[in-house]
């Protein structure tokens, strides 16, 4: 259960695993394996979470009220009905936006110092 007094900024900075999962859920609900595939895709295959990290982080996000389990179950003909689907809560979305803004600020600072554009 999330603490209603917490603001998105209180959760920052996020760990890479947390941000990756929030990012993976930003465009709709997914099950654990779907999240893992999405994370692998958005990191260009450089990160493949282990099941322990994936579900340990999911547990923390559920407790923090950033994601929730979806009540809807997939059509058994289309997917394994034993899977659990997760989606962002409005708080989780605000946290993801706040973290994105924080990272964007850092990125602008790195650009101004000419650190972008590949290592020489």
């Amino acid at each position, binding site marked *: 259960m999330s603490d209603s007094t917490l603001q998105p900024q209180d959760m920052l900075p996020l760990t890479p695993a947390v941000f990756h999962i929030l990012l993976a859920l930003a465009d709709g609900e997914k099950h*654990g394996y779907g999240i893992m595939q999405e994370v692998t895709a958005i990191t260009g295959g450089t990160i*493949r979470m*282990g*099941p322990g990290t994936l579900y340990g982080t999911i547990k923390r996000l559920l407790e923090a009220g950033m994601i929730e389990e979806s009540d809807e179950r997939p059509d058994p003909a*289309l997917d394994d009905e034993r899977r659990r689907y997760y989606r962002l809560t409005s708080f989780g979305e605000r946290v993801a936006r706040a973290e994105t803004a924080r990272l964007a600020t850092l990125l602008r600072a790195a650009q101004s110092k000419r650190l972008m554009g590949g290592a020489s």
Partner: protein
Amino acid sequence: MIQQRTNTPMIDWLVRLYRMLLILYPADYRAAYGPLMAQVFRDVCQDIYRQQGTLGIVMWWCTTLFDLALTAFEQRRKVRFTVSKAGLIRFSGPLLTAGGLLLVVTAFSQLQPGSHYSYYGVYQLLMFLLAPAFVLIGIGNFGVLLHYGARAGIFGRLALFAIAIGALICGIGFVLTMFRDSFWNIAGVGLLIYTGGTVIFGLLNLVMGILPVFKIVPIITGVQPLMMLTGLFYVERGPDIYALIFMMSIGICWAITGFATHNRLRQSVLAAA
């Protein structure tokens, strides 16, 4: 769409082994997430086997083992802390009540006639109870800090911490005085910290009503020690009825605080059930 299964004996065997290794996680966590983790492990095994063959599976297995060891340790550490924290909160009320009642009994030591600088008779017997009383109050206040810390604010938390630490030092100091008189200094330092904490927390509770007791109750636990430390009150020779009333009032106030804390906690547990 359900993905095409690529079950090989090797994958089946690895999944069985992975399921067995899930025993490393705490039971609650395993019950909630174990089947899901095993399912994800199998899905990834099948994917990797299709794309990279046996070598890929070996690499994935090594990564998974490392991940399992790290996260199982993390979950076990978390459970241990959560259980000890919850236990301390649950027992804080009875601990404070017991500490308070011991202080009430100790108060009768002040009826001992003669010098209070030497230990003998009933005085000695009852003063032995002072050490466990303060230790119980100290530990109980750690539970109060954990339970009410969030609404007490930063100064309230610091004051509760001072009460807990001060009472523990006091308790240890009282025990040590049995071996050498100079150890009264340790008890004195503990009493100073305890008094600072009780006075500050007592004042905050008067304003904010942090604890589920009458607002005046917590500050009473610091009044007599404050008077003793400032020289406004001291007992050189007994019997002293005022000292008895002071000590007894501190004990009663801690007992009331403990009872109210326990009662409120029990109500919230019942409400949540």
